């Protein structure tokens, strides 16, 4: 840090303290963001309060229209279920990873990150192959004689949750792993040496210490789930729609852009609110393994 400041100092002195020339380096990026991101976003907001008529009518629908209320409830409940299941599985995975040998840890980490690289579309279609009435799961269960007729999983909310959890596990695990890795193992050892059994040690020492990871993972997974599009669309069977699919339908099929823009604004506000919450409870940079 110190050397960096020293070399940068003369440049700043030459150009005057008021302007840091480093800003010039990211100026094209900022300009691009302004033109390609912020302005269109402003336009979306404008559409949401002007189409079809000027006013907050589209936002009122959120409370007055049973179908929109149903859509919001579906989105919240499926995201919440996904978050809980993904956290549970991610917690077990992260806990295992900090306790295995380092070579195993590397293998697990590689597999986890590798899973993240597989296209979400391919993963969703793979679940169709696995969960369908004629799919792998039902074929196995039936040939094993465990069931007589196929379990109806595909095109139900259960299928959506399975598909989303699959996508979210790496996202849930990595922040948990980072937090758990930094928990001093001697604390648990101390608890054991003072007579606590393994369960008490975990419940009173390790688990509370891992809480920050659990909260930040949870918020992160919830944010991702809330705006998820592909997986619910492919696995859901179209009976219950989540907000992203609802937006897409209103943009493309109807077209009813006022309502779509309103939903997009709601999605954005919820995401920012959750991110702000995340910023308060966790050190975002540390969550992804960055050091200060």
């Amino acid at each position, binding site marked *: 840090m110190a050397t960096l400041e020293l070399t940068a100092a003369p440049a700043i002195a030459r150009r005057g303290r008021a302007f840091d020339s480093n800003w010039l380096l990211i100026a094209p990026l900022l300009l691009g963001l302004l033109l390609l991101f912020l302005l269109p976003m402003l336009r979306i907001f404008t559409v949401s309060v002007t189409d079809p008529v000027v006013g907050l009518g589209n936002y009122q629908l959120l409370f007055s229209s049973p179908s929109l209320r149903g859509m919001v409830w579906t989105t919240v409940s499926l995201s919440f279920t996904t978050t809980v299941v993904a956290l549970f599985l991610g917690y077990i995975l992260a806990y295992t990873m900090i306790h295995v040998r380092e070579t195993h840890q590397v293998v697990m980490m590689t597999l986890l990150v590798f899973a993240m690289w597989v296209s979400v579309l391919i993963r969703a279609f793979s679940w169709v192959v696995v969960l369908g009435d004629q799919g792998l799961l039902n074929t196995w269960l039936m040939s094993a004689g465990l069931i007589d007729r196929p379990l109806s999983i595909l095109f139900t909310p259960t299928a959506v949750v399975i598909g989303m959890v699959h996508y979210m596990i790496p996202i849930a695990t990595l922040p948990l792993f980072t937090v758990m890795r930094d928990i001093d193992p001697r604390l648990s050892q101390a608890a054991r040496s003072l007579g606590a059994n393994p369960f008490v040690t975990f419940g009173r020492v390790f688990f509370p210490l891992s809480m920050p990871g659990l909260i930040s993972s949870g918020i992160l997974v919830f944010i991702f789930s809330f705006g998820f599009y592909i997986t619910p669309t492919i696995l859901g069977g179209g009976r219950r729609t989540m907000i992203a699919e609802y937006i897409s339908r209103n943009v*493309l099929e109807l077209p009813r852009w006022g309502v779509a823009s309103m939903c997009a604004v709601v999605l954005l506000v919820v995401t920012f609110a959750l991110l702000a919450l995340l910023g308060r409870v966790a050190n975002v940079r540390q969550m992804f393994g960055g050091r200060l």
Partner: protein
Amino acid sequence: MDRLNLNRRRLLASALPIMAAPLLPACGPGKPRHELVIANWGGDAVPAYEAAYGEPYTRDTGVDVIVDGSGPLPGRIKAMVESGQVEWDLCDSQIFAAMSLGKEGLLAPIDYNLVDKAKVPEGNALPYGVGSFTASLVIAWNTEVFGDNGPKHVTDIFDLKRFPGKRGLYSGMQGTAEYALLADGVPLEKLYPLDLPRAVRKVKSLGDSVVFWSRDAEVQRHMMQGELALAIMGSTRAEVASRQSQGRIKYSFNGAQRHNGTWIIPKGNPAGAEEASRFIASTQDPKRQLEAFMRLSLGPVNPEANAMVPPELRHANPNDPSNLPVQWERNEIWYAENYVRETARFKDLLV
């Protein structure tokens, strides 16, 4: 750096053509683009349109025809036209959409000096659209599930007792609302205006066994994979699925709603409205329509082409005299006037 010997002047020299590239089309003489982009609904429809209509047109005129199967939904057409970024020259649409989008000023008029009104059925030569093929929303089923006792009528899709299992319905009103009302006892001549709350009640009575599809290619895939026991689907895809599954999938025109596909030209299309109309005229050739029928079971709109269908394939033609009496026609005028508002209402009621 040394090995590359890349000094500033060389770097600039090599970058110059890249920087100048965007300016090039502007300096050359105004050359027309020799390419037509057709938007349709994807899957098997892409190679079928290429072979039946695209390739012969390229042979005749030298204009390349590109088929984009990403689905010309009204919202996408609206977005393209309003932003001035039109990518499609022609879209595979429907009569009511040609009426309503045309009224909204989103389409270019058809040039009837090039397109022959006599080669389409009555009511298919609209200011902003021309009939392109006939299809019906038929009932298709998996014979492995129902054996010889398959559904006999489109309304059987609502009979959970006799025909259990997952069933596919279109996620919009077309077919879904009408068949629900027919199954609920509404007589055919009193269908329109559609009583949506009643239709939705009937659809909801099917509970979790309904799967809603939005794309032809989607329901076709679900039927092929055996994920659906029965479905309401386009006759075009039902016939293709029946062939590809060697008869495992069967379908029936009994009670089916017939409608005509329609060529429309988005306003400001890249190749120009005249070129697009010229292409439409080329698709009126009976031989090409027959080819489209052979490949994708698109019912020909040109009466001459209907007469050319070989006897062994007549059963698959929605326009065949044996299939006509058991079907009925969608009320396009009602759809043109009510589609957006009522579809929104229908989908909201369904959630």
